[in-house]
């Protein structure tokens, strides 16, 4: 694609690309998760069916009970018209004849009884079904959320938070809709269907067979619908996910959107995604628009056939007029619920597609898996070792070609190097965000892959380069390092790194809400909070990835001083571009192109004429001001 595409043309291009998943603005990534070959759709269905089964299993008994209740309820409600007929046929003539209202009173009481039964059973049914449905939703939400939390970063790197949100909102919504109304409708419809079919056959076999003859056609038709709709609804789920992803990202980056006048282009993209979603939805609605009247057509044709054939039979005396009349009534009643089933099918298919997506997520295995037999480390000492570690994010582009490194317990190591050298990658391997492609990373001689999750987290904490604050108060955010820490601990942590001053100056001190993604605080303040949080966690190995880059010099110096005491009894890996931080380190590692090219105490390295000496000189230049002195 050329870089000189004028806006109109670009949007036209986007317009033209309707329907195929990849759009150029999205860029290319290793795998496009949205695209599924249609062959796997069978697998998908069975996978989601399994999930559904799992979700329903705890309620097996209750569901049986539920069916019994709804049957009772339906019997009661179907009995009422029948009782009315009985009342008229058998209750009134005796009264007219002056024999008293005995039968009538019985019938009326029966109707009232039926109404009461209906009242009670329906009430129980609605509540029970509601509770089961909501419990299933709760369980599903819980499972999917926890699973997302379990999944490794390599998964989240591509999946994006928008898609996570879409799974846990719009997909869950689709399922919720089915659970809310679907079950009720389905059971009622099926009951009426079976009951009426039996009735028809009992009334008159010949005519009954004619009335039921179109059933195979109906089955074929339904099957066609099912196949079509499962494709269409899958597409709908994907389309809505893309809408959500774009929405969420635009909102998160609104500052850049507005500052860079991105609005028109965003609008074009959004409108396009939205239109795709509409198109997918429209296809679904149109399918229903064909299916539902289709069923009606089959029903009406059957009615006509019954009229004709039944009429003939009646004329020839094969059936009585009464039977014919009943048939006409029942045939209509037979095909009416089919309409409802089609409606139900609609929500069902949509929920099915959603369930497919969710089961897909649940099936995803974390690439950084928890060990089967986790080793528990009671008192981590903090010796970190890399043994022949190789790592790459994408196959074929090694980021760390081969790394060997031992950091003895208690050592403070500074990691420096050009940007993109792989410092953060190294840090992430220690925190086990990823597993090495080859070799191993050890803590106190134990492979991280064998170490229990709890032990690992208690021992190693990484302050990431990008510090994320959750909405909540400042105290909440600091407490994130150690949930359960008392307010005193929180304040002590803040104080020890020099964050106390600014927090106390906030209008509500530690209870001040930090706002969406910490927006209420300045960049440096966010960094201080993130730092305090790590300090509160009190791990044996603390990794600081440019944890002071946004602080002013004074603030940085304060943190530095604090670090000297904080880091005294723990292993620390400090990544920093400002070499002032390095001064407190016992040892400096210089990284370049994924390799450690220099290693030694800072004093010694400065003396050598190597990379570090060069960096150090450049740094001295940067903090001083003599180079621009006139003359």
């Amino acid at each position, binding site marked *: 694609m050329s870089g000189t595409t004028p806006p109109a043309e670009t949007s036209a291009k986007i317009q033209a690309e309707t329907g195929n998943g990849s759009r150029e603005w999205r860029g*290319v990534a290793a795998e496009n998760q949205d695209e599924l070959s249609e062959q796997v759709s069978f697998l998908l269905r069975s996978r989601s069916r399994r999930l559904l089964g799992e979700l329903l299993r705890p309620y097996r008994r209750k569901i049986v009970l539920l069916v019994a209740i709804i049957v009772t309820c339906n019997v009661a409600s179907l009995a009422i018209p029948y009782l009315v007929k009985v009342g008229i046929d058998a209750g009134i003539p005796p009264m007219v004849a002056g024999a008293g209202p005995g039968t009538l009173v019985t019938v009326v009481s029966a109707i009232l009884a039926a109404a009461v039964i209906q009242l009670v059973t329906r*009430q129980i049914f609605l509540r029970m079904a509601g509770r089961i449905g909501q*419990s299933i939703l709760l369980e599903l939400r819980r499972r999917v959320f926890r699973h997302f939390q379990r999944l490794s970063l390599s998964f989240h790197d591509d999946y994006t938070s928008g898609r996570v949100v879409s799974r846990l909102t719009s997909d869950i919504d689709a399922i919720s809709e089915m659970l809310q109304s679907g079950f009720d409708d389905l059971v009622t419809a099926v009951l009426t269907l079976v009951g009426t079919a039996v009735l028809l056959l009992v009334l008159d076999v010949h005519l009954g067979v004619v009335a039921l003859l179109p059933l195979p056609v109906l089955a074929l038709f339904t099957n066609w619908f099912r196949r079509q709709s499962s494709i269409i609804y899958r597409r709908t789920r994907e389309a809505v996910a893309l809408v959500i992803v774009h929405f969420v990202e635009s909102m998160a980056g609104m500052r850049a959107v507005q500052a860079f006048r991105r609005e028109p282009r965003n609008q074009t993209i959004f409108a396009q995604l939205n239109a795709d979603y509409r198109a997918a939805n429209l296809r679904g*609605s149109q399918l229903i628009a064909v299916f539902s*009247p289709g069923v009606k057509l089959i029903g009406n044709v059957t009615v006509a056939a019954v009229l004709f054939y039944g009429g003939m039979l009646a004329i020839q005396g094969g059936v009585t007029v009464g039977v014919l009349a009943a048939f006409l009534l029942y045939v209509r009643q037979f095909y009416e619920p089919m309409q409802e089933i089609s409606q139900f099918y609609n929500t069902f298919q949509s929920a099915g597609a959603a369930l497919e997506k969710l089961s897909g997520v649940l099936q995803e295995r974390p690439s950084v898996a928890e060990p089967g037999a986790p080793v528990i480390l009671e008192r981590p000492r903090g010796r970190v070792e890399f043994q022949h570690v190789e790592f790459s994010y994408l196959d074929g582009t090694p980021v760390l070609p081969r790394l060997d490194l031992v950091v003895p317990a208690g050592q403070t190591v500074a990691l420096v190097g050009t940007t993109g050298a792989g410092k953060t990658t190294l840090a992430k391997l220690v925190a086990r965000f990823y597993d090495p492609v080859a070799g191993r990373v050890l803590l106190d001689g134990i492979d991280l892959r064998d170490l229990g999750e709890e032990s690992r987290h208690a021992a190693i904490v990484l302050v990431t380069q990008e510090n994320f604050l959750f909405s909540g108060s400042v105290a*909440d955010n600091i407490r994130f390092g150690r*949930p359960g820490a008392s307010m005193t601990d929180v304040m002590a942590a803040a104080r020890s790194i020099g964050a106390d001053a600014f927090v106390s100056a906030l209008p509500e001190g530690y209870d001040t809400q930090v706002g969406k993604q910490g927006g209420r605080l300045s960049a440096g303040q966010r960094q201080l909070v993130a730092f305090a949080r790590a300090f509160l966690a009190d791990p044996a190995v603390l990794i600081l990835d440019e944890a002071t880059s946004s602080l002013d010099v004074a603030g940085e110096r304060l943190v530095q001083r604090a670090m000297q005491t904080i880091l005294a009894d723990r292993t620390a890996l400090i990544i920093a*571009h400002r070499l002032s931080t390095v001064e407190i380190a016992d040892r400096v590692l210089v990284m370049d192109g994924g390799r450690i090219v220099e290693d030694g105490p800072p004093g010694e390295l400065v003396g050598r004429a190597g990379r570090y000496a*060069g960096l150090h000189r450049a740094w001295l230049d940067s*903090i001083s001001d003599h180079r621009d002195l006139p003359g």
Partner: protein
Amino acid sequence: MPPDTSDTEISDTETESRTRPSPPLPRLRGARSLWRLRSYLRPYATRLVLVWVPAFAAVGIGITIPLIGREIIDGPVARGDSEALLPLALLALGLGMAEALLVFLRRWLLADAVLGLETSIRDDFYSHLQRLPMGFHASWQSGQLLSRATTDLSAIRRFLGFGLLFLVLVTVQIVTVTGLLLRMYWPLGLLVVVSAVPIVLTSLHFERRYILISRRVQDEQGDLATVVEESAAGIRTIKAFGRGRHVSGIFEEGAVKIYGTSMEKVRLSARFFTFLEVIPNITLALVLLLGALAVGSGTLTLGTLVAFATLMLQLVWPISALGFILTAGQEAMTAADRVMEVLDTEPEIVGGTRVIERPRGHLRFEGAGFRFPGATEPVLHDIWLEVRPGETVAVVGATGSGKTTLTSLVPRLYDVSTGRITIDGVDVRDLPLPELRSLVATAFEEPTLFSMSVRENLTLGRYDATEEEIATALRIAQAGFAYELPWGLETRIGEQGMSLSGGQRQRLALARAVLSRPRILVLDDTLSALDVETEALVEQALRHVLREATGIVVAHRASTVLLADRVALLLDGTIAHVGRHHELMASVPEYRALLSADPDAEEARL
């Protein structure tokens, strides 16, 4: 269902403060909000009027077909005339086919219209959000916004697509049948009408409560969406501390809350639905009893009673269906409320109309002050600062002193509370927003990237940039690495650029700002994640760029400060000193404290 995490206690306090005062719940306007959406249906007006034709025709046919049955029984069958049978059967066939066709037409016509409605509201919703200023976005969680743009709009679509039509059809059916009943035998008819009174009363009561509950569920779902979004966006932090369980606890809390409220909703509607179904049945029993008495006393014929009862049976379904339709309507109304709540928010920052013919980028802060909405103290006050075209001023100040805030006033991400800011003598508030924002480009302290191609991220502000311009911008920002990515500039970078290193992200953000060729270039501490060598290279290249533009550089380091001609020191919310670096170093102790090299470093230099 209590959360089973061990840290229940904490997550309790956690969630309490976490459920920040979500935007105040406005008075529920329900139906009015929904009605206000009608303009979106205008493009489909003809269709929406037309749709009633097949809708009613289909209902009519539905009533006619049984009549043909009666005709056949009374006619050919009674007379034994098989000749006359065929035409009637064919008529039934024809009508049956017509009914199916009409149903098809109704659905087909409506599908497009309501989807069109949903889509255009969503488009407008999004566009409105893009217009609303940062102040709005800072106070609204995107989960809340998202649930309005998706869940709520679908609820509206569903109701307008089916609910409303059925509501009318069902009402017409109920009224017609009741009318027929009244005509047939008025005392019993009256009984039927009277039985409607409890239904109406309950409906009203129900409506009031249901609308509150469904609003609560919808709000809670929005909150949960926010938790989800944060937990996904902050996944690295969560993993770094191994707080998956803790976050799940927070989610659990929200999910359980929805469960509770939904159950309340279930119980409420269970009661209501049952009520709706039972009343007609009880009425039926009464009709039968009283009807029989009437028949007994000879005021009513048996035939009429039979017809009456049969007709009444036809009322049972519509009345119980009313329950579903009303709840769907209720949800649509709350949804419309929630949507209008956002659409009704007026953008506080709108552009003016003045145009600068030949913008030079002469920037002046004239007594500018700023106070965050809801804050008591202003962050900035009495800012007087002039930056001439081609000049660069460094803004220096302690952490949290208001540097970022100051820079965001220029492109009007926020508006000054007092004073004004001018460009070439024109108040920025008088300029059209796109105009203003093409004059000013900012490289933010947080890179703010999107999960799109590198190219798209770079050309955010100028997607007509040529290949050479992109190359130049990348060169200036020392971001040549972009070409080495697996698919070059077409590589999709992760969300927030997470598949890049910190320094790479920052350089892309810088290249983006440079690429938009602004008259005023704002660099908000944009070199903080670069190593010193790369930083020196970037500074070298930036010097050229800054010579041609007006520059504001927020800096924590002397090296960056030296990019500027003058330095403004931000102290206690205002610019306390302006001068050259060396002057300030010599004369202002506060400045020295902020920028002087590390004591150790001083020694090393000597």
